[in-house]
């Protein structure tokens, strides 16, 4: 009854709920595939606006991920390494978008970046820049919703990383910035990659904040989730096809990147 093989086996009481959980999470995806009108797939994909929506989704999710990396990795470092007081409050604050209903996020973004918003009215007056109804607004909405995923992943990786390497680098005369670039970052690279993938996938699926803050215009702000929602109002078959496309893109990305970069990351 002892030995590595026995302990690796799933205890019976866990098996049934785990199987139910798999069924619950995967069955809706299966349902989508079963109901897909495969013969119409080509025609639906060629429909005007679909390619545009997909392209916009991919571009804006990638830009949002880039922005999240630029701002989120330093934030994660602050949360993981700095000894400042109020870190737990800060952590709670910056992860609020994780649990906030996205449509509420959209409203909040309006109040800050909208034409009448705190920063938005200043941008409008000073530079004549208005953000809502532009692709930039899509990127902002997606970044707001998706960045916390990256921050949490990177912060976890930083906490798990062995800080003695950094200490050694410091004793060998490396500055703090060099240590961060040459030692810390490579150390947590898998965590950063995992966070970036999560962040990208979340940005790709963003709906509520986008339609609230960025609006919905083909080619400028209409991403795939918005196209799916509106197709559902008119032609459910088209909505199913678009959903399958989005599902395929997300799944392919998660699988590919997982094998390639995240192999070393603990599951």
């Amino acid at each position, binding site marked *: 009854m002892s030995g590595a093989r026995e302990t690796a086996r799933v205890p019976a009481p866990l098996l049934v709920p785990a199987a139910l959980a798999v069924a619950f999470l995967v069955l809706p995806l299966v349902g989508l595939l079963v109901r897909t009108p495969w013969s119409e797939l080509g025609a639906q994909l060629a429909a005007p606006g679909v390619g545009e929506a997909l392209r916009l989704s991919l571009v804006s999710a990638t830009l949002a991920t880039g922005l999240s990396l630029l701002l989120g990795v330093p934030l994660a470092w602050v949360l993981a390494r700095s000894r400042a007081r109020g870190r737990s409050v800060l952590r709670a604050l910056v992860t609020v978008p994780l649990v906030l209903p996205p449509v509420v996020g959209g409203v909040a973004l*309006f109040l800050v970046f*909208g*034409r*009448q918003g705190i920063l938005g009215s200043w941008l409008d007056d000073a530079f004549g820049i*208005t953000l*809502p*109804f532009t692709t930039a607004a899509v990127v902002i909405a997606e970044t707001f919703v998706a960045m916390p995923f990256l921050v949490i992943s990177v912060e976890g990786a930083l906490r798990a990383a062995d800080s003695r390497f950094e200490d050694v680098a410091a004793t060998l005369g490396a500055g703090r910035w060099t240590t961060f670039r040459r030692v810390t970052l490579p150390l947590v690279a898998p965590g950063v990659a995992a966070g970036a993938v999560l962040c990208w996938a979340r940005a790709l699926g963003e709906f509520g904040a986008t*339609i609230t803050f960025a*609006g*919905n*215009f*083909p080619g400028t*702000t*209409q991403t795939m989730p918005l196209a799916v*929602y*509106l*197709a559902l*109002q*008119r032609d*459910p078959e088209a909505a199913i096809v678009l959903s399958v496309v989005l599902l395929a893109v997300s799944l392919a990305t998660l699988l590919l990147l997982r094998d390639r970069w995240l192999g070393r990351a603990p599951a």
Partner: protein
Amino acid sequence: MRRAGPLVLGLLLLSGCGSSGGGASPGVAESGPVEPGDPAIAGTLTVLAAASLTDVFAELEERLEVANPQLEVRFSFAGSSALAAQVLQGAPADVLATADEAQMARVADAGLVTDPEVFAANPLVLVAPAGNPAGIGLPGDVDVRGLAELLPEDVTLAVCAPEVPCGAAAAEVLAASGAPAAPDTYEDDVRAVLTKVVLGEVDAGLVYLSDVHAVGDDVRSFAFSEGAQAVNRYPIGVLQESGAPAAAQAFVDLVLSAEGQRILADAGFLSPS
């Protein structure tokens, strides 16, 4: 202040019922075909209705429930397309009221409703935020004019997506008007358009007349000549699968009655004629 009229009427109705011990006072009998205390009008009545009818139908519900204490009316308000889809998928309900005839036709074609009747009409109007930053319709904006004259080229414009009834209507009037302004966003319903106007995030939007009544002074509205081309007509009908046909018919009759029409007019709807 708009609500004061119906409210007083409702109070009169209430006191009328009380003093006559549940019997039909002349005032009630005149105001509609509803017969108070009809034993067939009891139980739960489920009404699926277009979101734009939310306030009006809540008021009608009160009338019907006061007249029929055994009756409980439940509403499900949503976009007309979604409601039609629900009925076609077999959702149990007694009455369907949609914001356009096309969605009702889908249900009628499936044999799930017979002889729906049009009970209200709702034209599109152009709205601007209270401050009217783009100067829409100025100067001298009393006359009804074409959209092309009202809308400067560089305005930020919100309309409904073409997939929903208000968007189909908006596309029609924009095409007919030849206005140079192009929409900047296609919102998923008419209230989303209105919200963006109220917030001042867009310079103008195309919404229904009844929605303007809902927000009052937060927006300025402008009628335009093409509006007559895209008037949404609201049909209502008792569903074939209804488990409470008598109560359902009573609700439909109330909507079509003089009293129902008065409440609809107060909320900014036009008569269907």
